[in-house]
Every structure is written in C-alpha cells, then in structure tokens.
C-alpha cells in the first residue's frame, strides 16, 4: 500500500532519477523502469536529480508519511469495527426473525432433521458422483461445440453461408428453449424416433440436452471474446501475410480465450446445478436419490443434503473465478489501486 505513496515529494523510495516525469502517467512500474533506463543511456540529464536518486537508498520516512500511515491504520481499524458490528447485528436479526416465525418448529423437523440427513447422505452422495460425471463430460463437449459454432459464425466467405446460417439458427433456437424442456424433448423424443443406433440411455440423453443448451451460450461467450480482440491485431497479423485461419489460431483465439475464462467458469457453475435437471429422465443422480428418500420418509432433509453438495462444489469454483478475474484486472491496471 505504501508503495502508492511513492510519488510524494518528501521522499522517493524508488530510486528513479526522473520520478517527476513518470509519476503523472498511469503506466506500470515496469514502464517506468524501462523509461528510466532508456534515458540514462542517453546524455545524462539534470545531475541534481541523479543525486536525489542516490540518497533515496537510505530513505527515512518523513514525519508527514508517518502521520499519514497512522491515519490510514486508524481508519482501517474503524472500518473493521463497523463491519463486524453490522455483520453480527444482521445475523442476529435474521436468526431471530426465522426462528420466531410460527411455522419454524415444523420446518426444523422436516428440513433440518439430523437423522434423515445422515440416512440420506450415502445415497445422495453416490448420486452426486453421477452429477459430477455428467457435467464433466458435458463441459468438454460444450467447449468444443461452442468454439466450433463461434468460429463458423466468424467465417466470411460466401461458400460457408449455409454453415453460418445453421450456426445462427442453432444459437437462436437453443438459447431460447428452457433447459428442462430441452431435457424432456431430447430425453423422450429421441428414443421415440426408434432410430437405429440412437442413444436410449437417460444419462447420455441428458448430457446431449445439456450440451445442446449450454453450447449455444458458450458459443456466444466465445464469439464476444473473439470480437473483443482489437481489429488492429487482425490487421497486424494479416499484414504479415497470415491467412484468416492462421490469424485466428495464433493471434485472435489465444487472446480471446484468456478473456472469456471467467464468464465460461460462470456458465459452468450454472451447468453444475442444471445437471440435476437430468433427474426428470430417471437416472439415480443426486436430486433423484433425494426425492426417493423424501418420498419414503416424508422428510425433506435429503433435499438439503443434495443442495449442500452442490454448494460445496460451486463455491470453490466461484472463488476460483473471482481469483482469475482479479488477476486479469491486476494485469490490466499494472498493479495500481484503481
């Protein structure tokens, strides 16, 4: 944090001979260093400032800086106190409001029953492994399908018009159909065709439905990533005589994919939850197991068990997405605070 104050006139901890010249620009510290070294190569400017740089090695914090840091520490203590107090207050209010509600004893009995929880856990957990399998397979297929559709939509040659039209039609249709409807349509419609070799296994059918639905979203994510790469990058690549395909492969896609990782992970968190929709086709995944237990005991706690398992998976993923987004932001701003 104190590094941000480096530009203060009292003392410059970074021995940059031209701190004044560089400080105004929002450039990162590396740019500053490069600029400084480039200038020292040339005719040595302003010897007085050079001496200031040398004395910066034995920097003693000025009184002004000491006071500033004390003020900042006091301020952060104050905000921590306020945050703690308001969190505790909100939690107390919430707990009191919920437990004081007239139906609370019944809810506690039917949704928060430790016995029912323990009894359902093994089966629900086993079912959850099937959920994991479903979305792992679906994720890979979705990435491939989404990327292909995005690339097809980027083709300009008139020869590819039918393909391009098909890609547009695909995204329009499958983004519009609710996932659960699609699971029903694929799950019961495809076997009804009685085609030779068509899959009839509910898990496979469920995966197909999820891939079709999410593929259309992911295709749009990829497409926006591709379009976010500045046209000057394309111009530079084409001016080097790279073909459209080479430009995509070596210049545009590597940059585009890096940019869309956070939104892709967001879509995948959503996919993890929607893997439970396959339950309507009957395979014994997490939600279905919970239903079975709930139906036999008239206790809804198994649903909570299933929900907790889903949360246990999506929360780490959400934190990972945040981490990636923060890293990208840090790179863009070059380490600044704003």
């Amino acid at each position: 944090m104190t590094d941000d104050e480096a530009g203060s006139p009292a003392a410059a901890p970074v021995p940059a001979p031209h701190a004044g010249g560089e400080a105004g620009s929002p450039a990162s510290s590396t740019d500053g260093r490069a600029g400084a070294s480039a200038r020292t190569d040339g005719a040595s400017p302003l010897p007085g400032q050079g001496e200031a740089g040398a004395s910066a090695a034995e920097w003693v914090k000025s009184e002004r800086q000491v006071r500033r840091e004390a003020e900042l520490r006091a301020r952060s203590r104050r905000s921590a106190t306020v945050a703690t107090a308001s969190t505790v207050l909100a939690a107390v209010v919430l707990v009191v409001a919920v437990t004081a509600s007239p139906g609370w004893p019944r809810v506690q009995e039917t949704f928060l029953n430790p016995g029912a929880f323990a009894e359902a856990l093994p089966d629900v957990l086993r079912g959850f492994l099937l959920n994991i399998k479903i979305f792992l397979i679906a994720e890979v297929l979705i990435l491939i399908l989404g990327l292909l559709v995005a690339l097809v939509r980027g083709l300009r040659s008139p020869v590819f018009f039918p393909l391009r039209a098909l890609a547009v039609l695909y995204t329009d249709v499958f983004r519009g159909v609710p996932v659960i409807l699609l699971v029903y349509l694929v799950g019961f419609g495809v076997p009804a065709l009685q085609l030779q070799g068509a899959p009839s296994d509910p898990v496979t059918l469920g995966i197909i439905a999820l891939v079709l639905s999410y593929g259309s979203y992911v295709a749009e994510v990829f497409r926006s990533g591709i379009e976010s790469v500045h046209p000057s990058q394309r111009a530079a690549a084409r001016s080097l005589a790279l073909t459209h395909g080479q430009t995509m492969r070596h210049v545009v896609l590597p940059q585009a994919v890096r940019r869309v990782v956070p939104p892709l992970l967001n879509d995948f968190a959503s996919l993890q939850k929607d893997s439970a929709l396959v339950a309507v086709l009957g395979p014994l995944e997490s939600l279905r197991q919970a239903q079975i237990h709930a139906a036999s005991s008239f206790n809804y706690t198994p649903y909570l068990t299933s929900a907790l398992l889903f949360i246990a998976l999506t929360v780490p993923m959400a934190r990972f997405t945040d981490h990636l987004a923060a890293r990208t932001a840090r790179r863009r701003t070059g380490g600044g605070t704003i």
Partner: protein
Amino acid sequence: MSLLTIDGVWKQYHDHSVLRGIDLEVAPHEVVCLIGASGSGKSTLLRCVNLLETIDDGAIFLDDAEITDVRADPDEVRKRIGMVFQSYNLFPHMTVLDNITLAPRRVHGVRPREAEEQARELLDRFGLSDKAGEYPDRLSGGQQQRVAVIRAVATQPRLLLLDEVTSALDPALVTEVLGVIRELKDAGMTMILATHEMGFARDIADTVCFLDGGVLLERGSPEQIFTAPEHPRTREFLQRILEARRM
C-alpha cells in the same frame, strides 16, 4: 523500372472520397515520405497498398504485377510487403521473439531454429538483444515500435510501409525508432512513410509527397518541397507546422 506503381487510385468511404486519383511510382531503394494533415489520406493509401483496404478505382502494381487484380491472392502479395503501424500492434500474448518469428515460421516456412537465429541477429543489430524473452507490455513504446519494425522486416519484404510510426511515442523515444529506419534506408530497403516528423522526412526522404484531401498535390525532392513549395496549400501546411513548432 519502378518497384511499386500506384495508378489513379480512388477510395471511397460511404459517400466521402478519401483518395481521389492518386498516382505514384516508387523505385527500388527509394524512400518516399507522405506528408499532409490528418485525414489527407496518407494512412489509407498505405493500407490500400497492403490490401488491408480494397480500392474503388485504379490499380496498384508491385514488380509490374497488378496486386489489386481481384484474382490475385492478397496473402501472396502481403508476403512481399511489410507494414508497421502507429500503435505498434505487437501480439501481447507472445514474447518479442515469437512476435518476430511468427510470420517467418508460419507463412514463409522457415525452420524454427533458423527463424530464431535471424530474429536474434536483428534484435542484436537494433540494440534489443536482451528483450527477446520479454512480453510487449514490459517494453517502452520506443522498444515496442522497434520490435514492430523488426517483425515487419524479418520476412525480408520488397517494400516496407510505415504508418506514422512515431506519432504515439514520447518525444524522447522518437529518435531511437527513427535511428532504426535510417539504418534500414542505408541497407537499401524501399520504404513509404506516412509521417508528421518533417525534420526526419527532409533528412531521409528521396521523394516527398504532399497529400491534401485525398489528392497528391505536390511531389519533389525534400529540398524543393520544404524550401520552395509550389502549391499554396503546401506552403500553408508547412507554415502551420512551423508555427506549431515555434510555440
């Protein structure tokens, strides 16, 4: 015999004419500087030569073959033309070395080993040998632009187009880029530069062309254009530049 011939080129954006019948011949090893106000068509002309823009009339010939022929393969044409942009346009996800060797390896079929050797030689020649493994965002503007020039000449093009390559640079960093261009001239590179650096144009150009509103109003030796411009518009333009310099 000229290396590049631009013959009556027109370029239209919507209903606005950006280039209005440009004629220009560039001899081998010649350095042509395009000067003129922003919007006079300098950049557009360079982009047309590199086929990044399609022209609306006229023709452009490189080595006596028409490159604006609709049956010509633009990628084949661009293999012989290098281009440097105002905003460097280095590929941010690649190291300096990968930026330079991309086209030799992928387009010209040079073996990776050989491409890397050539790239290192060029980096060495232009004082950037310690930057080979760096990513572009770790370099200063001047260093980035020098890398961009090296990237453009690494494929040994017949012709190099430089589009206001110092306009985005800190004044202190301009000289290092101009030094590279001067060295390329000494090595015999044929170049067309769009530039606002009048002193440099005067110093390096064999021919200076003044563009105004998409028309090539006046051309001649730097001496003639800068000391005795014939056209009143040229005089006015140079006068304005001089005044700006004095302020």
